[in-house]
């Protein structure tokens, strides 16, 4: 078990190193930050000086090693745009994105799982078929369309909820939370529903089809034959057996929620990492872009690890050396 986790950690390191390399090299060739920073009328000498100050005159491998070395010490360099440490920018923006992604994923699960269970159990009922049809819309509607429709309805039309921003925030340690003020919560609603829509539909459809599959299994029939209550059969035995795929998808979706919050954050001007990235791209702010990508890959790596560990917690067949060891006693 411990060996397994270690092995996974080493794999993860390699993955992240690769991502860092790709990100860094990609951005090194896409544009010239100096042109942006120095301005139109700077002389060639000023430009060369700036290039040297930024370390851009050094050969690529040296710059990459310096970047990775910095990352390992928690130094992500300075933003070209406003010369603040990248780490500070990230720390400032991280809470907004995490709160958005977590609330969207929680919403997707809280709504998607019960609806999926219901539809799996009553697949021919009118309500189940209606949910199934609506979920198709949820899957196929692009995020920005969902966002704009919601803004039109609830902000422009009804005037209930703010169309952009995070509302009032409260600082707890270094974490700037929007969850403790009314305006913060109200501001969170539309973006998280927008971000959750696709996941919700996906989770619902997945749970539904997994439930239908599991309910056909022999052990469900046997559980009924033992006279267990419907509740125990449906939730204790059936639902639990659908968890492995649901957790996989939820994990990946949470990663995507963080990574692709870019669209939602842009639509709602949500001051998170996605918006930071979009601004960085416009400015060829290489340290910020590279750090963002490394951070996202770090999220995915952690999520994958957590998902794998959850498999172990759920499915005893994957565990070696459970009680009584691996033996298939005869």
């Amino acid at each position: 078990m411990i060996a397994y986790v270690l092995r996974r950690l080493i794999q993860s390191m390699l993955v992240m190193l690769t991502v860092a390399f790709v990100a860094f090299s990609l951005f090194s060739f896409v544009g010239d930050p100096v042109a942006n920073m120095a301005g139109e009328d700077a002389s060639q000498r000023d430009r060369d000086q700036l290039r040297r100050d930024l370390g851009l005159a050094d050969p690529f491998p040296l710059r990459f090693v310096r970047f990775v070395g910095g990352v390992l010490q928690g130094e992500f360099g300075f933003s070209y745009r406003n010369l603040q440490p990248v780490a500070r920018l990230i720390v400032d923006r991280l809470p907004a994105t995490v709160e958005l992604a977590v609330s969207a994923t929680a919403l997707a699960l809280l709504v998607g799982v019960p609806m999926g269970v219901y539809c799996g159990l009553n697949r021919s009922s009118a309500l189940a078929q209606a949910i199934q049809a609506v979920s198709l819309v949820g899957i196929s509607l692009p995020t920005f369309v969902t966002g704009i429709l919601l803004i039109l309805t609830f902000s422009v039309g009804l005037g209930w909820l703010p169309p952009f921003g995070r509302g009032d925030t409260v600082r707890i340690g270094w974490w700037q939370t929007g969850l403790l003020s009314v305006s913060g919560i109200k501001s969170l609603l539309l973006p998280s529903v927008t971000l959750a829509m696709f996941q919700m539909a996906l989770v619902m459809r997945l749970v539904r089809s997994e439930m239908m599959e599991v309910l056909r299994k022999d052990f469900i029939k046997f559980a009924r034959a033992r006279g267990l209550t419907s509740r125990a059969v449906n939730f204790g035995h059936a639902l639990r057996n659908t968890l492995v795929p649901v957790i996989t998808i939820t994990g990946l979706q949470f990663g995507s929620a963080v990574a692709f919050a870019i669209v939602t954050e842009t639509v709602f001007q949500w001051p998170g990492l996605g918006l930071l990235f979009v601004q960085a791209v416009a400015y060829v702010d290489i340290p910020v872009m590279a750090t963002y990508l490394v951070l996202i890959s770090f999220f995915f790596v952690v999520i994958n690890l957590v998902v794998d560990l959850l498999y172990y917690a759920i499915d005893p067949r994957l565990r070696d050396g459970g009680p009584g060891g691996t033996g298939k006693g005869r």
Partner: protein
Amino acid sequence: MSSALLEVRNLRVEFPTRRGTLRAVDDISFSIAPGEVLGVVGESGAGKSLTGAAIIGLLEPPGRIAAGEILLEGRRIDNLPYEELRKIRGRQIGAIFQDPLTSLNPLYRVGDQIIETIRTHLPLSEAQARKRAIDLLQEVGISSAAERVDHYPHQFSGGMRQRVVIALALCAEPRLIVADEPTTALDVSIQAQIITLIKRLCREHKTAVMLVTHDMGVIAETADRVAVMYAGRIAEIGPVRDVVQNAKHPYTQGLMGAIPSIGGAEERLAQIEGSMPRLTAIPPGCAFNPRCPKAFDRCRVDRPEPIPVGTTQVACWLYEDARAKEAVHG
């Protein structure tokens, strides 16, 4: 009316399909006395499993009981609401299915599955139920039961899992067990052990058994009475000695072509030319007539009803004389 534990009267199981209604079990009647072992034999597709499923109230839709009654200790159970019937399942009628590898929920310890079943039906505490679970595992021949109770299904071999399934079927002391081909999926070497176990346990607990199998050898060794099914009907039913040694129905005689041994069922069935008709093509008159060496005109027109011949009932026109004689004597 009688002292029968289970009484099945004119049971009919049908599947509505697009191309008309399929009648898979057609007007069968039999009873099981307390503590009695009724063997049910017949080729695959004869309707044995559906009969068992109808008794425990777990026919899978669209299959349904189209006519007839099922009585347990004189009380009709075929028309009970789901929740009422649920309380009977496991508590008064236990079930054992064919494949022990898929009968148990892979995610739960075997002990937890037994405890859950016990506590569903009996007012025992967790600790009492656990003790009972360990005793039961011991009783079904699982060594170091106190330890094995905490193991997961995948840690048991097929034969051991079937023992766990038997413990589960017996754990609330039902009066009747419906065992549907409990050894078919097992290694030939373990089949006899499992049959012996079922036989011993049911004798000790005074549990009646409906033992479904296509193995005449098992029936000969285990059952008190035997019902021979063919194309959804009972061809012959009576005390096992009479049916085995003095088969009356031409189909039974074909089955008895050789004195069977456990595991050799397939060969013996092949001794009868042809195969059982599909549900969509059951011939008029006696369903067996196309394969029957003794068929005569009437067999192709009129359907034979069970006729009492000595201790057995035989659905065959050859024995109409016997009925006539009986009528004269009566």
